[in-house]
């Protein structure tokens, strides 16, 4: 049987976990999982802002969110933080990659249901707050941003106090803060140094593991599992 199938399905296993199924492929996804988003021809506004992120990070994931359940997710998108449904927001597109990642602690302990609930609670409290455009575009001024940027500018943007600024959010800032403030999970070793956090920083982190990937190519679905 082909791993391509008409449409993916979700079935609730319990209040914390869903089963994502496509044909004979299936994966258990759960509340608080990180959703990494890449797309070849995404023309929504997050894709436009994501271009700056891709330019700096060399990573195809330009946007990210927190998975809730039953297809819903919370993300910092334009123009504000919101809760949306994956089916209408991404699954209708023709070329998108959605990867679920699961945070873990430095000692490899998996996150608990209680920790995931706290992370989601934090994210949901930010719903309605504005998208942080300046912060997103400032990725190019990060220490690993564009070369030949004057040192004083790099230093200024390298040490932005993003963890304490809770009035505006960009995508990875919200995911990083939700897990850090909500459950004390840090995706990089210098979270407290207040340096910018990109989708690539979190995807490449030792403290998250890929669970599965749902690919849409020319409208056809493919589910990759472990």
């Amino acid at each position, binding site marked *: 049987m082909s791993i391509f199938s008409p449409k993916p399905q979700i079935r609730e296993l319990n209040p914390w976990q869903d089963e994502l199924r496509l044909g004979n492929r299936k994966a258990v996804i759960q509340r608080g999982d990180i959703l990494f988003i890449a797309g070849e021809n995404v023309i929504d506004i997050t894709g436009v802002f994501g271009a700056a992120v891709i330019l700096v990070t060399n990573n195809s994931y330009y946007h990210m969110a927190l998975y809730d359940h039953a297809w819903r997710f919370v993300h910092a998108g334009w123009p504000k933080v919101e809760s949306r449904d994956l089916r209408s927001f991404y699954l209708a597109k023709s070329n998108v990659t959605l990867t679920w990642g699961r945070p873990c602690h430095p000692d490899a302990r998996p996150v608990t249901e209680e920790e995931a609930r706290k992370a989601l609670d934090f994210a949901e409290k930010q719903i309605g707050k504005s998208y942080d455009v300046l912060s997103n575009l400032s990725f190019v001024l990060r*220490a*690993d941003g564009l*070369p*030949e940027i004057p*040192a004083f500018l790099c*230093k200024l943007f390298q040490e932005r106090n993003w963890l304490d600024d809770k009035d505006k959010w960009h995508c990875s800032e919200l995911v990083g803060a939700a897990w850090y403030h909500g459950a004390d999970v840090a995706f990089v*070793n210098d979270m407290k*140094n207040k340096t910018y956090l990109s989708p690539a920083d979190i995807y*490449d982190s030792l403290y998250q593991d890929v669970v599965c*990937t749902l690919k849409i190519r020319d409208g056809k679905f493919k589910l990759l599992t472990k």
Partner: protein
Amino acid sequence: MARLCKEWDEDACRIEDVTFERLRDFFRVRGKAGNLLACILPHLQLKLVVLDAKGKSLIEDVFHLTDRKLRPGESCEFKIEGEWRRGMKDAKVTVWFSGKRGGE
């Protein structure tokens, strides 16, 4: 206190203990990078090349270290996961050289 490095090349780190494994539809590469320079490597990126049995490159990618201020003499483990492709056999990891960077 060491300053941030402004420029570096492939010799900036010792890359060791690299492992490559298949997890059904994914591959996973693990290893460790140690700073050989006298300055702090900020937001170090590494280059991954996955090879087939004949040593031919199948994919190339760039990824980030979890320790974003790698101090002189310090090491940091790394892990990168991606989609498995038929023929993948081994992985090679090197330092992604920087352009001239700003910093302190």
